[in-house]
C-alpha cells in the first residue's frame, strides 16, 4: 500500500496573518513557518494505513526551498520520503497550478491513495485536492472523518450538514481528511534524528515538464485589492465577582430573548 500525502508549509496560524500591501500576497518573511496543522492529520492517516498493511508514505509539497522543513516534520512523524516541488516560477501560484505541479511530479509513479487536508489553514479555498483528483482522473473521497482501506477499496465517513455519509471508491483514489479523523502523533526524538537522513527529492518545473503551464505564467486570477474589514466594536467587559450570571441574564432580558 503506497500512500502519497500532500502537505503545505504555512505561516504559524496562531500568529495573525499579514498581507503585503504592494503584492497583496501573504507575508512569509519574519513569520514562523509550520507544517499546516490540518496536514498533520493527513500524515497521521497515511502512517496508520501503512503500519497496518505495509508499504510506504511519501510526502509531497510545493513551495520555496525552506518548505523542506514542513516535509522534514512529516518525515519525523514517520513518513518514508519526501518530494519538494520548488521553482521561482511557481511563486504566487494559485490552487490549480499546485494541483498541476503535484500531478506532474508524480507522473509515472503509482499510489494507492493520495491524502490531503480538506483545505489549507491559510488559504482555505479547499480547491486543490478536487482539482488534483480531476487532473489524475481519480475519484475523490472528501471530508473524511473516518477512513478504512480493504479489498482494493477506500471507504470513508464523509461529513455532511446533518451527520455523515458512508462513501466508497476503488483505489487509487484521493481522500481529504478533516481534523476529526485522528489525533496526530508528535514526532519523537528518534524520528527527528532519522528524518535528517531520509530522502527529499527536489524538482523544478522543467523536470516535471510544466514550463509555462503552472505558476506565474498560468495565473487564473489576480488579487487587486485588500482592505481591512469593518470591525465590530467591543462592548462592555466585566469581571465576574459573583454577579456575572445575573448580568448576562439581565442582558438577555433586555434583548427580549427571555
Amino acid at each position, binding site marked *: 500500500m503506497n500512500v502519497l500525502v500532500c502537505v503545505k508549509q504555512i505561516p504559524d496560524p*496562531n500568529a*495573525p*496573518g499579514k*498581507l503585503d500591501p504592494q503584492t497583496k500576497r501573504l507575508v512569509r518573511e519574519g513569520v514562523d513557518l509550520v507544517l499546516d496543522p490540518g496536514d498533520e492529520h493527513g500524515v497521521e492517516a497515511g502512517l496508520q494505513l501503512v503500519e497496518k498493511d505495509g508499504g510506504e508514505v511519501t510526502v509531497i509539497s510545493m513551495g520555496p526551498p525552506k518548505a523542506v522543513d514542513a516535509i522534514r516534520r512529516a518525515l519525523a512523524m514517520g513518513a518514508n520520503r519526501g518530494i519538494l516541488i520548488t521553482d521561482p516560477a511557481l511563486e504566487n501560484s494559485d*490552487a*490549480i497550478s499546485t*494541483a498541476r505541479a503535484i500531478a506532474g511530479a508524480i507522473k509515472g509513479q503509482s499510489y494507492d491513495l493520495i491524502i490531503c487536508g*480538506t483545505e489549507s489553514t491559510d488559504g*482555505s*479555498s479547499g*480547491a*486543490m485536492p*478536487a*482539482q*488534483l483528483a*480531476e487532473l489524475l*482522473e481519480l*475519484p*475523490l473521497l*472528501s471530508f473524511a*472523518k473516518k477512513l478504512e482501506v480493504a479489498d482494493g477499496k477506500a471507504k470513508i*465517513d*464523509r*461529513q*455532511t*450538514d*446533518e*451527520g455523515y*455519509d*458512508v*462513501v466508497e*471508491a476503488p483505489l487509487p*483514489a484521493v481522500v481529504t481528511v*478533516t*481534523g*476529526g479523523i485522528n489525533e496526530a502523533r508528535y514526532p519523537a526524538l528518534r524520528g527527528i534524528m532519522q528524518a535528517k537522513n531520509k530522502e527529499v527529492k527536489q524538482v523544478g518545473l522543467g523536470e516535471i515538464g510544466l514550463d509555462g503551464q503552472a505558476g506565474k505564467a498560468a495565473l*487564473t*486570477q*489576480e*488579487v*487587486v485589492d*485588500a*482592505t*481591512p*474589514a469593518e*470591525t*465590530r466594536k*467591543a*462592548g462592555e*467587559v*466585566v469581571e*465576574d465577582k459573583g454577579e*456575572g*450570571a445575573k448580568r*448576562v*441574564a439581565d*442582558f438577555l432580558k433586555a*434583548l427580549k*430573548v*427571555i
Partner: protein
Amino acid sequence: MAGAWVFAETVDGVPKPVVLELLTKARSLGDAAAVALGPGASKSTATLGEYGAKKVYVHEDAAFRDVLATPAVDLLERLVEKDRPDLLIFGMTYDGRDVASRLSARLGTALIANATDVSAKDGGWAIISPMFGGSLLVTTVPKTKGPTIVLIRPKAVAAAPAGSAGAPEVQRLTDSVDTSKPVARVLRRETEKASGPKLEDAAIIVSGGRGLGAPENFKMLDELAAELGAAVGASRAVVDAGWKPYSFQIGQTGKTVKPTVYIALGISGAMQHTVGMKGARTIIAINKDPEAPIFKLADLGVVGDVHKIVPQLIQEVRSRKGK
C-alpha cells in the same frame, strides 16, 4: 445580459437555503439560471423561479444523488459548452466545493472560493472574499477566458424572492450519465440527531470551546440551550478533540451562523472561529482569560469561570422566565 448560473443543490426536491441566497445574487448580475440535479429536482423549479431563475436545467438521474461530484461535473461541462454562461455560482458547501473545484480543473477556468460578494467590473467580475478570519476583505479578478466559477459562503447574501418573476423555462435533460469510470459512491446516509433548532436557523446559539475543560461539561450548555430555545455549537478545537461531532462546528471550516444572540462559552475567539459567527447581531462571551480575543467582538463580556457562571445563569434564566 450576462448569464449567471447557480448550482442548485436540492434535498428531495427542496432547494437548500443557500441556493436561494445564490439566486438572489445571480439575478442582480444578469440572466439567472439554475441547474437542479437528482431525484425530485423538478419539484424545485417553482421555488427556483420565485427567487429569480429564468431558466432551470433539470436532470433527475439518481447518480447525481448517489455518486460524488463527477456526474454533475460531466453534465455541467456539456451545458457550459453549449449555452456558455459567464458566471457559475456554487454554495461553499461540501458538494458545492467538490463539484466547483473539479469543474474548474476540467474547464481550466478561474475558481474563487470563500466569496461573500460578486459584482460586474470592466466586462468581467470582481469577487470579494474575507481573509484572516474576516479581518481583511480581498478583491480578486479572474484572468481566464470561459465562465468564472465562484463559491459563495452560506449566509453571505440575504435571500429575497424576485417579486414579479413568472414561471421559469424548464429544460428537462435525459442524456445518459456515465458512471463507468471509477467513482465515489454513497452507500448510506447517517443523521446525527441534535435536539432543538438547527444551528443555521437558530435565533440563539450557545457555543462551547476548549475552555469547558472536558466533553461532559457540554451538558450544561445543552441545559442552557434548552432553557433559551437555542442551538448548541462548538469551536474547531472542541471538534478536533472529538468532544462534539463536526456538524456542531462553527467557523472557517464549519458553519457560518448569523443568530440574533450568540453566547460564546470558554471560546478564546481564534480567527478561524470568529469568521463563522461575527455576523451575529449580539455576542455575549464568558471566558476566564481577560486577553481572549473574543472580548474584542463581544457586546457583553464576562471574565470568569464558565463552570461557575453557566449553572448560575441557567438558574437566573429559569427564575426570570417564571416571572
